[in-house]
């Protein structure tokens, strides 16, 4: 059975992890992560679909909001093609945050890799990032890894949607943005004015977030969103 066939039969994140580790090992990679990329200021953790990183680096990267400083994560928004981490541009002189993340990553031996951006409908952004040396990859390898990464991302998104993986469903960046304004005491019509959305859409976002979080009213939704660090104030 081919790797891609096996991958699509996995019913859990653990299963996908095992299949992926073996597959990327053939190309010289040892670790990977599958995640959505949050809007500015949001915690990345609810967006992570599957982490195969060392727990120490993962804890540091996620709790310190490194995703918003990391030039690799940032570059995903600028390209549809897979790229080497080393090709993600940043200003080494002025961008101290980016430099810090890249230097710390080196200490964890997490400074080389291949990043596959995943563009979803509605401007949502995902990523599959593989840790390891890329110098030996040829164009054919890169296309194969690109395809493999998209299968893995799709499968994880499916398992996540069904909630079979025990991953709590995150709210969307747009819902988070609206909830942040609700938390700041704004009315639906204020928020419509600020964001350029219609009042109806603002209310719809609140209702969707409420449904996802299983809460009973707007206040409850905001409280739960803060408690789970889905929004930061």
């Amino acid at each position, binding site marked *: 059975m081919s790797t*891609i*066939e096996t991958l*699509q039969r996995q019913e859990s994140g653990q299963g996908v992890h095992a299949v992926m580790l073996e597959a990327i090992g053939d190309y010289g990679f040892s670790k990977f992560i599958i995640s959505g990329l949050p809007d500015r200021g949001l915690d990345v953790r609810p967006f992570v679909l599957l982490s195969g990183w060392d727990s120490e680096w993962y804890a540091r990267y996620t709790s310190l909001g490194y995703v918003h400083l990391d030039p690799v994560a940032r570059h995903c928004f600028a390209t549809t*093609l897979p790229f080497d981490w080393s090709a993600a541009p940043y200003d080494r002189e002025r961008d101290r945050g980016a430099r810090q993340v890249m230097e710390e990553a080196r200490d964890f031996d997490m400074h080389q890799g291949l990043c596959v951006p*995943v*563009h*979803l*409908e*509605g*401007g*949502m952004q995902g990523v599959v990032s593989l840790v390891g040396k890329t110098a030996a990859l040829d*164009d*054919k390898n890169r*296309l*194969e890894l*690109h*395809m493999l990464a*998209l*299968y893995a*991302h*799709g*499968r994880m*998104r*499916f398992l996540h*949607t*069904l909630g079979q993986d025990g991953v709590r469903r995150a709210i*969307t960046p*747009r819902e988070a943005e609206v909830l942040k304004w609700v938390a700041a005491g704004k009315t639906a019509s204020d928020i419509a004015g600020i964001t350029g959305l219609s009042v109806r859409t603002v209310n719809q976002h609140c209702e969707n977030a409420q449904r996802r979080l299983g809460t009973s009213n707007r206040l409850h939704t905001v409280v739960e969103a803060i408690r789970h660090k889905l929004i930061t104030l």
Partner: protein
Amino acid sequence: MQVHVVRGRNSDHPLMEANYRLRHRIFVDLQGWEALRREDQRDIDRFDNEDATHLLLTDRGELVGGSRITPLDRPNLLQTVFHGLVHGDFPTDLSLGADWTRFYVRPDRREGRRRAPESAALFCAMMEYALSEGYSFITFVSSLAMLEHGTSVGWTITPLGPPALVDGKATVAAWIAVSEQALYTVRRATGMSQVLIPASSFVFTPPSAPLGM
């Protein structure tokens, strides 16, 4: 939203003119398929023929998305224009498959939402149609992104060959397994709770002779 099943050339159908114009805008003007460019701003090719079935999606009477389906035992895009992408075998006899082409959602409908209800509706309608026609697999040629979108609704998708760069874009030919399970998972993943193609679309029109003769 409503799905219309338009069979064959059917140039009189009120939605077909809008379909050809929207396809030109999307595939030529926005996606840059220069080979399809036409003076009259309508994307019509040799596979818009009697063999084709068009699934057209409307919202309040306006066309917002579409797809074209050609049986694989008739001349089709996959085995002509894109035959270079097909290396492996088809899962079963060609008469049990169809080629899915010209999938689109009107661009203004793709903004600001995680999964546009228009593409969800077309995915569901596609699987409903394939089941009702008795197909066991559906082929397509697309950017690799389609593999992600398809698997994210629980579909099983098998490449027909290795991915290749076509006009600089990573492209693959692949087939989707048609099954009740695939319809169930796409409905569940997209939250679709209604039948899109009513059974009456497929009712055989009886000859005028009265029953019992």
